[in-house]
């Protein structure tokens, strides 16, 4: 009873009445503060996540660039540099992802001794971001660290024996005849039509080859073509295996043009996939050139000269290559142009892998 009286007096007191309205202000004020606080925190988290995504993009680009340098033995020593420069070409939080940028550090690790791979490249980037609201909770900065790892897969560097047709084609020669110009192989993509000019009266982009076998004759070429066209059962190692950078011998060619112009070879050519060695420049007669790669063409049309005794042009579609490969980086051919071309056709491949699998 006594307590009730005291409470009633307290409620009726002037001071307490004065405070009644403050509850009405306190509740929406609290809500406003909570919305502002939550919103600002959400802003910090969004900023954090955005910077993390940008850093991840830069690290992925860097790791893939570093791994790509391992495709060729002439660039393998530059893998870390490739990774850093590519990473720096991307931005996060408005800054280049580079150790030269403020509050950012980038580390690159390269491992070239990986079982089953050419090598791996791991890029880690850290960036300190300034928070907006989290500062009032004494959390003014956040350090975001992101890592990406890429591997360079085994490079195709060798074609097994009896896999290639004995006709080399040029990667860059632009063939010509009296009817106009054709297209160089390097400008074409899978599924495009590729014309191979082999007549000596034309600017050629194809020439018959005995691969690495010196001093062959017309009989060798005929037998090699018969085996490659499935007209004869293959003799082991008759058409030898070749590696990137190996010199292949280019023949006079007229006998090959004549041999192909008659049946059963002419008929066997059509709708057949031919794996052809690729060289640089116009294929010369009776000289050697280093092999730089392979292309597979599905022959669709064969044009003969007026007399019908010699093949002038082969026309086909570029298809996926079923070439067997071997591990090992592409050798440095000693010729900068050939090295550049080797890299441009990229017989190796790179891919992102889980960070935990980095063995460096």
């Amino acid at each position, binding site marked *: 009873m006594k307590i009730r009286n005291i409470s009633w007096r307290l409620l009726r007191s002037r001071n307490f009445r004065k405070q009644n309205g403050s509850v*009405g202000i306190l509740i929406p*004020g609290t809500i406003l503060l909570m919305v502002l606080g939550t*919103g600002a925190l959400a802003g910090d988290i969004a900023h954090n996540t955005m910077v993390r*995504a940008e850093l991840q993009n830069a690290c992925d680009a860097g790791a893939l660039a570093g791994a*790509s340098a391992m495709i060729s033995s002439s660039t393998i020593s530059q893998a870390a540099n490739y990774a850093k420069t*590519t990473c720096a*070409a991307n931005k996060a939080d408005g800054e280049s992802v580079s150790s030269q940028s403020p509050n950012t550090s980038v580390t690159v690790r390269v491992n070239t001794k990986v079982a089953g791979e050419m090598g791996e490249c791991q890029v880690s980037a850290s960036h300190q971001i300034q928070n907006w609201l989290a500062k009032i909770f004494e959390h003014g900065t956040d350090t975001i660290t992101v890592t990406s790892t890429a591997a360079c897969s085994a490079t195709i560097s060798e074609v097994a024996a009896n896999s290639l047709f004995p006709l080399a084609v040029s990667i860059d020669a632009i063939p010509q005849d009296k009817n106009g110009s054709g297209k160089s192989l*390097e400008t074409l*993509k899978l599924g495009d039509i590729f014309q191979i000019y082999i007549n000596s009266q034309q600017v050629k982009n194809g020439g018959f080859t005995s691969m690495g076998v010196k001093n062959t004759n017309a009989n060798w070429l005929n037998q090699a073509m018969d085996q490659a066209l499935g007209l004869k059962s293959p003799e082991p190692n008759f058409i030898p295996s070749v590696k990137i950078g190996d010199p292949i011998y280019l023949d006079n060619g007229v006998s090959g043009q004549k041999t192909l112009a008659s049946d059963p070879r002419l008929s066997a050519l059509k709708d057949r996939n031919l794996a052809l060695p690729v060289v640089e420049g116009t294929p010369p007669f009776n000289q050697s050139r280093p092999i730089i790669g392979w292309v597979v063409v599905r022959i669709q049309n064969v044009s003969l000269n007026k007399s019908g005794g010699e093949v002038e042009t082969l026309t086909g579609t570029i298809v996926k290559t079923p070439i067997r490969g071997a591990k090992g980086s592409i050798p440095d051919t000693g010729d900068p142009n050939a090295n550049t071309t080797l890299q441009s056709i990229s017989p190796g491949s790179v891919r992102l892998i889980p960070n935990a699998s980095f063995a460096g």
Partner: protein
Amino acid sequence: MNRVNSGMTIAETVAFMSVMLPILMAVILVLAELSHVYVIRQGLLHAARQAARSMVAIYDESPIIAKNRSIQDSLVYSHVKIKDIVNSSNQFDFASFDQSSTPAKVTVKVQYTSGQNGLAKFPIFDPLNLGSYQMSETATYAVY
């Protein structure tokens, strides 16, 4: 007396809310637009990255892509779509291949311009008529 008190409370709350409610609504609106910015930028970054990597892969087989915008459109940009963020190939700039650098690199830039290419107006609420915003993201990858 209680009626007087409750009247005061209501009056003070109404007065406070009439000032604070617009502020509260404005804050919520700004937060919604900021989250919209975040979603758009994430989408643009993803699109730029996807386009740059496709560009590298296709350059491997067909280097002419470096010089031909229509090939870039047909082989890369037309395949990179993110609903209401990247609707058209026109949002991408011509991919720049820097072959003088080591390693050679390709940079892809993608833009979001409010109200163009079938994109939603941004900001959605613009009572002060501040105009439309343009956002962009870039990705640079090595060509090999």
